[in-house]
C-alpha cells in the first residue's frame, strides 16, 4: 500500500471506529481497541484505495449487474394482498451492498457444525412429530404446539418411521451476533427458504464489480454447494433411473420470490414448474410436456406445504397438485422439504431445542437459539412477566407473526397485550431483545455501520449436511434481528468466508464430484411454458403491429396539411385499429377529421387501453418463462421492457411523447425477434414463440389488406401506399418497382411473396413449418387449410392484374372474403393448438364437499 493509501486507511479506520463506537453492538470489522480485525485488513486496504466515490461507483455497477441478471423481488400489489392473474407485477430491484461481510474460516467452522447439527436434530424431531409422536407421550414437547399448528399436516403423518434425512433436505437459519460476540439463531427456515440462489448471483456480481477485493484473499467458493444440493435431490429419486428428473415447484410469476425460483432451477439443473404443470396419476407425478407426460422423481417445493395438494390439504389451493400427498405416501415421488417440515419453524420450538438435542442426539446444542420462553407453562409466564422490559413477545407458532415490545408500546396497547398474554399464554413466546452486530456498508461518506442478520443455508449430503460457505447478510428493516424476513425489504450483503488454509480444499472438493450428466432437453418443454411462449410471441407482435399503425396515424394527424388523401389514409388506419379492438368503433372512421383522429389515437394508448394490457401480459409471460431464456436474453429483455408500460401513464395526451414511445416499442419488438433468432435453440420453445409472432402478423396483414380495399376507387393509390407502410414493405416495393403504385404488384408483395418476411405468404409458410416440426399429437392442426386460402388469394391477385374495370369489383369482393377467412382461421389456430398441446393443463376443481 502506498504511503497516502495507508494514511487514508488510518483515517477511514478512525472514522469507522467513531461511527460504530456509540452503539453497544459487536463490531464485525474492528476490535474493541479500535484495531481492524485481521480477516478484514486486505479488504479494508482495497476500500481505502477506492475511497467513498470509488465505492459508490462500484455500488452502482453492482446493482446494474444484478438488475440485468433479473434479480428482483416482487411485491404484491398494494392493498390487495396479492396480485390477480392479470394484475401488474411490481418487480423491485434487489439491493446489494458493495461491501461484503467477512468471517474467518475458524469461526465459520463452528457455525457450520452448529447448522449441520440443527438440521439433523430437526429431521429427527419432524420424523417423530409426523410419525409415532413419542416426544408428546414423553412430555418433551407440548401437544398444543403440534395439534394447534397449521403446519402439522395430519394427512402427512406416517404409520412407520421415516428414513433418516427424509424430512429435512435443506435448511436455512437466520443468525445474529450479540454484544458478547456469540452467534445465535433467531429463525429456522424449512418451509421454502429463499436466498440461496441469490447468494450465488451476489457472488457473480461481486466478482465483476469488486473483483480486486475478491482476489486479495482466499475466499471460499459457492458453486460446489449447488452441485451437492443437486446431487442429493437426484439421489432422492424413488425410481433408480439414470437421469432422475427434478422440478422446482413455484407458485408462479406472481410470487415475490419467483425470480429466485427460476435461478434455483437453473443452478440445480431442474425444470421450473407450477402446480398446473404437474399431474399425479396412479401414485406418480408427471410433468406435462409437449411430448407427453414425463415422470418427476423429486420435487423441490417453493410452495408452502398446506397449498401443495387441494385433495388432502387446503382445498382452496390452486397452486398444488391433486394427489401429491398420496404419491408421496406410496413413494412415487420425493418432496423436499417433506410436507410438514415447517412445523419446527414455530418460534416456541427454540424453548425446547436444547433438551431435544440432548435427548435425540445425546449432544449439547452447538449453536443456540436466542433465549426463548414459551409462556404456556406457568413458571415461564411468571419469569416473562418479571423480565418484560428486556423481552419481546411474538406468536408461539407463526414464524412471521408480529413482534411486540411491551415496554416500548403505548400504555393502552401494553395493557391489552399483557391481558392477551394472561388470557392465552400458550399462544405466545417471549424472546430476549438483542442488539445485532454491525458491519461496514456503503455510506454517503465512506463506511456506514449496518446491523447484520446472517442467513446460512445447508443441504443434505450423503447422510449428513453440508453448509454453503457463504450466505446472505441482511440488514433488517428497523434493525430488529427478529425481523429478517425477505419480504420486509432491506439491504443485502454478500458473505465471504476468508480461508486460512489456502483454497486447495475448496478446489479439491469440486474436482472430486462426479461429472454432471449431459441431458437433452428438447421435446421436454412443459406445456404451460409452450403456451406462455406462444402468447408472448403473439403479444409482442400485437404491440408491434399496433404501434406501427398508430404511429402512421399520429404522423398524419399532427402534420400541417389535412386533405382528401390524409382523410382516406386515416380512414384505413382507423379501420385497422377498430378491427384489432384498439380504438372503439364509433362510425367516424368513414370520414375522420384531424383533431378527432388525434384524440382517438392518443386514447388508444391511454392507461387501461389494449396496448397497456398487452404490455402487462408481456411482462407477466416473460417473467413466467424466464427460465427458458439465456442469461443474455433475459438481461436484454429486462432492459428493453424497462418501464415501457409505466411510460404510458406519462404520455398525458402529448403526441410527441407517444411517438417516442412507439419508436421504442418497435425497437423492443425488433430486438426480441433478433434475440430469439440468435439466442434460442431451435426446440419446441422457440417454435411456439415464433409461431405466436407469425400468427399475429398474419392477422395484421389480413386486416391491413381488407381495410385498404375499402378505399374508394379514386383514392386507390393512397390506400396502396399506406398498405405498404403498415406492412413495413415500402422499401421492398421501391427497390423492385421504383415509383409506380399499382394494385397487383403491391398486393403481390404484401400477400403472396414468400420472400418478403412481412407478407402473408411468409407467415403462413412459417406457421406450417412450425406445425410440421412439433411433436405429433392427436388433433394437432396442420395449417393445410391456410395454404388453400392463400392459393385463392393468389388467384385473385392474378385476376386484379389482368382484369379490366368490369372484373375488378368482383375480384375485390373475393379478396375481402379471403382476407376475412385467413384472419378467422389464424384466430382459431390458437384454439386448435390449445386442444392438441395444452388441453391437459385444464384446471382442477373440487367436488364432494357439498
Amino acid at each position, binding site marked *: 500500500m502506498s504511503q497516502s493509501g495507508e494514511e487514508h486507511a488510518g483515517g477511514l479506520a478512525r472514522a469507522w471506529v467513531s461511527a460504530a463506537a456509540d452503539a453497544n453492538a459487536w463490531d464485525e470489522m474492528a476490535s474493541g481497541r479500535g484495531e481492524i480485525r485481521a480477516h478484514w485488513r486486505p479488504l479494508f486496504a482495497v476500500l481505502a484505495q477506492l475511497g467513498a466515490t470509488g465505492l459508490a461507483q462500484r455500488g452502482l455497477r453492482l446493482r446494474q449487474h444484478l438488475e440485468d441478471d433479473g434479480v428482483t423481488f416482487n411485491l404484491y400489489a398494494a392493498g390487495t394482498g396479492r396480485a390477480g392473474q392479470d394484475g401488474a407485477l411490481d418487480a423491485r430491484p434487489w439491493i446489494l451492498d458493495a461491501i461484503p461481510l467477512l468471517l474467518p474460516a475458524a469461526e465459520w467452522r463452528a457455525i457450520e457444525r452448529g447448522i449441520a447439527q440443527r438440521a439433523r436434530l430437526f429431521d429427527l424431531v419432524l420424523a417423530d412429530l409426523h410419525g409415532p409422536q413419542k416426544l408428546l407421550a414423553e412430555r418433551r414437547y407440548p401437544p398444543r404446539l403440534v395439534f394447534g399448528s397449521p403446519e402439522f399436516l*395430519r394427512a402427512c403423518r406416517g404409520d412407520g418411521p421415516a428414513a433418516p434425512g427424509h424430512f429435512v433436505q435443506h435448511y436455512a437459519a437466520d443468525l445474529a451476533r450479540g454484544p458478547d460476540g456469540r452467534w445465535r439463531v433467531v429463525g429456522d427456515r424449512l418451509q421454502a427458504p429463499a436466498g440461496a440462489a441469490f447468494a450465488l448471483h451476489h457472488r457473480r456480481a461481486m466478482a465483476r464489480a469488486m473483483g480486486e477485493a475478491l482476489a486479495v484473499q482466499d475466499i471460499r467458493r459457492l458453486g460446489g454447494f449447488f452441485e451437492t444440493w443437486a446431487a442429493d435431490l437426484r439421489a432422492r429419486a424413488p425410481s433408480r433411473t439414470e437421469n432422475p428428473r427434478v422440478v422446482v415447484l413455484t407458485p408462479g410469476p406472481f410470487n415475490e420470490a419467483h425470480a429466485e425460483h427460476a435461478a434455483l432451477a437453473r443452478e440445480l439443473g431442474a425444470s421450473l414448474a407450477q402446480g398446473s404443470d404437474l399431474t399425479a396419476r396412479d401414485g406418480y407425478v408427471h410433468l406435462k410436456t409437449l411430448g407427453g407426460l414425463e415422470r418427476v422423481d423429486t420435487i423441490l417445493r417453493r410452495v408452502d406445504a398446506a397449498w401443495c395438494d387441494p385433495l388432502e390439504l387446503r382445498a382452496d389451493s390452486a397452486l398444488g397438485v391433486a394427489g401429491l400427498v398420496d404419491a408421496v405416501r*406410496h413413494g412415487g415421488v420425493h418432496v423436499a422439504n417433506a410436507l410438514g417440515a415447517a412445523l419446527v419453524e414455530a418460534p416456541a420450538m427454540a424453548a425446547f431445542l436444547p433438551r431435544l438435542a440432548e435427548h435425540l442426539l445425546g449432544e449439547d446444542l452447538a449453536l443456540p437459539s436466542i433465549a426463548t420462553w414459551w409462556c404456556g407453562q406457568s413458571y415461564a409466564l411468571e419469569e416473562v412477566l418479571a423480565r418484560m422490559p428486556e423481552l419481546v413477545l411474538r406468536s408461539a407458532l407463526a414464524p412471521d407473526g408480529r413482534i411486540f415490545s411491551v415496554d416500548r408500546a403505548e400504555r393502552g396497547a401494553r395493557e391489552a397485550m399483557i391481558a392477551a398474554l394472561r388470557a392465552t399464554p400458550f399462544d405466545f413466546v417471549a424472546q430476549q431483545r438483542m442488539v445485532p452486530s454491525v458491519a461496514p456498508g456503503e455510506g454517503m461518506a465512506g463506511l456506514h455501520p449496518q446491523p447484520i442478520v446472517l442467513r446460512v443455508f445447508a443441504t443434505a449430503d450423503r447422510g449428513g449436511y453440508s453448509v454453503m460457505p457463504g450466505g446472505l447478510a441482511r440488514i433488517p428493516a428497523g434493525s430488529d434481528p427478529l425481523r429478517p424476513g425477505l419480504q420486509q425489504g432491506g439491504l443485502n450483503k454478500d458473505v465471504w468466508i476468508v480461508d486460512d488454509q489456502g483454497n486447495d480444499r475448496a478446489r479439491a472438493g469440486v474436482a472430486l464430484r462426479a461429472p454432471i450428466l449431459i441431458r437433452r432437453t428438447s421435446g421436454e418443454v412443459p406445456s404451460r411454458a409452450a403456451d406462455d411462449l406462444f402468447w408472448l410471441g403473439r403479444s409482442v407482435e400485437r404491440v408491434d403491429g399496433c404501434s406501427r399503425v398508430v404511429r402512421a396515424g399520429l404522423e398524419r394527424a399532427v402534420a400541417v396539411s389535412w386533405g382528401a388523401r390524409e382523410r382516406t389514409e386515416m380512414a384505413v388506419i382507423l379501420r385497422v385499429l377498430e378491427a384489432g379492438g384498439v380504438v372503439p368503433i364509433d362510425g367516424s372512421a368513414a370520414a375522420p377529421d384531424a383533431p378527432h383522429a388525434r384524440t382517438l389515437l392518443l386514447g388508444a394508448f391511454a392507461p387501461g387501453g389494449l396496448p397497456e394490457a398487452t404490455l402487462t401480459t408481456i411482462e407477466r409471460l416473460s417473467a413466467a418463462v424466464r427460465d427458458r431464456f439465456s442469461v443474455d436474453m433475459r438481461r436484454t429483455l429486462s432492459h428493453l421492457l424497462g418501464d415501457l408500460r409505466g411510460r404510458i401513464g406519462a404520455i398525458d395526451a402529448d403526441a410527441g411523447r407517444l411517438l417516442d414511445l412507439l419508436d421504442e416499442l418497435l425497437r423492443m419488438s425488433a430486438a426480441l425477434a433478433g434475440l430469439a433468432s440468435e439466442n434460442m435453440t431451435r426446440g419446441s420453445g422457440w417454435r411456439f414463440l415464433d409461431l405466436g409472432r407469425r400468427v399475429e402478423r398474419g392477422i395484421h396483414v389480413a386486416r391491413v389488406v381488407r381495410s385498404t380495399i375499402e378505399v374508394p376507387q379514386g383514392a386507390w393509390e393512397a390506400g396502396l401506399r399506406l398498405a405498404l407502410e403498415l406492412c413495413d414493405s415500402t422499401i421492398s416495393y421501391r427497390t423492385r418497382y421504383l415509383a409506380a403504385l399499382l394494385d397487383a404488384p403491391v398486393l403481390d408483395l404484401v400477400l403472396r411473396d414468400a420472400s418478403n418476411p412481412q407478407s402473408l405468404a411468409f407467415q403462413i409458410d412459417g406457421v406450417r413449418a412450425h406445425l410440421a416440426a412439433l411433436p405429433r399429437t392427436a388433433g394437432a392442426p396442420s395449417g393445410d387449410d391456410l395454404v388453400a386460402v392463400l392459393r385463392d388469394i393468389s388467384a385473385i391477385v392474378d385476376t386484379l392484374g389482368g382484369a379490366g374495370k368490369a372484373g375488378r369489383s368482383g375480384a375485390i369482393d373475393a379478396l375481402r372474403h379471403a382476407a376475412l377467412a385467413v384472419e378467422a382461421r389464424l384466430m382459431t389456430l390458437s384454439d386448435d393448438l390449445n386442444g392438441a398441446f395444452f388441453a391437459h393443463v385444464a384446471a382442477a376443481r*373440487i367436488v364432494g364437499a357439498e
Partner: protein
Amino acid sequence: MRFRLCHTTRYVYSGPVDIAHHVLHLDVRRLPFQDVMRSRLSCVPEPSSLSERNDHFGNRVTHLHFGQPHDSLAIVFTAEGRLHARNVPDDLATPPWETIAAQLRGDGFPEVIAASEFALPSPLVPSLPDLLAFARPCFEAGAPVLVCARRLTRTINAAFRYDPAATDVATPLAQAFRLRAGVCQDFAHLQISALRGMGLAARYVSGYLATRPPPGMPALRGADASHAWVSVWCGAQAGWIDLDPTNDCLAGQRHVVAAWGRDYADVSPVRGVLSGGGAHRLEVGVDLDVDDGTDTMHGGDGR
C-alpha cells in the same frame, strides 16, 4: 341389534372428466359396541387404482384414482354389522367439568394427550364468544361434565331450528349461530365449539342414523342419510360419550359410527378433485336398516 347399510354416491358430469381423484371416509369403524361383519365398496367405472389406509384419527380411508375419461361415477358402499348397547356412565358420577378442563390443559403439558387435540379450535369450528356466552349457563360450577354436556345438547336442540334450507356446507359457523338454524352438521359444530370454548375436548362424529318411517309406511330408499353428532371427553373412566344435538339424545343403537375428526372437513364422506367434466350433478342416497326402532329422529341432510 343388526344393521345393514347402503351408501350410494352418484356424480353425473356434463362433459367427460379426464382425471379424477377421490378420497372416501365411508367405511364404518370397528368399535367395542360396533361389530362389522361385512363391508364392500364398488365403483362404476372401475377405478384405475384403489388404496386404503388409516388416517391420523384411526379412520379407514379409501383413495380412488380414475385415469380414463368418464362422464359419470357411481360409488356404492355396503356394510353389515351388529350394534351393542354402549356403556353410558351415570351422568352424576362423571368428574366436574373444571377437573376435565384442567386435565386437558395441564401446565403446558396435558394429562391426556390424545384427547387434548380435540380441545383446540379447528378450521370449521372457530371459537365464537357469543356462542360461548350462550352456552355458559349450562356449566354450573362444580357440576359433573356429562350433566353439563347433556344440558348443552338440550339447550342447542331447543334453541335451534332443524332446517336444511337455512345453511349449506359452506355456511360459516357464526352464521348458523346467528340464524339459530341448520342441519346436523351445524348442530354438531355448534356444540363442539361451545364445549371447546369451555376447555373441554369434543370431536365430530360422522355416521349414519336409522330414521323410522311414519307408522304403516314402508322404509323408503334414501330416506335415511348421513348424520353427524358430537363426542365429548368425560375423563379416563367414562371416556368419550356421544351426544346427538340434532335429536337431543345420547347416541345409541341407531347411530352407526363411520369416522371421527376435529370437524366435518376431516371426515367428509366423499370428496374429489376433477380435471374436465364441466358442470356436475350429485345424488347421495343412504339406506340403513336396523331391526328395531323407537321415536322419529331428524337426520337426512344428505351431505
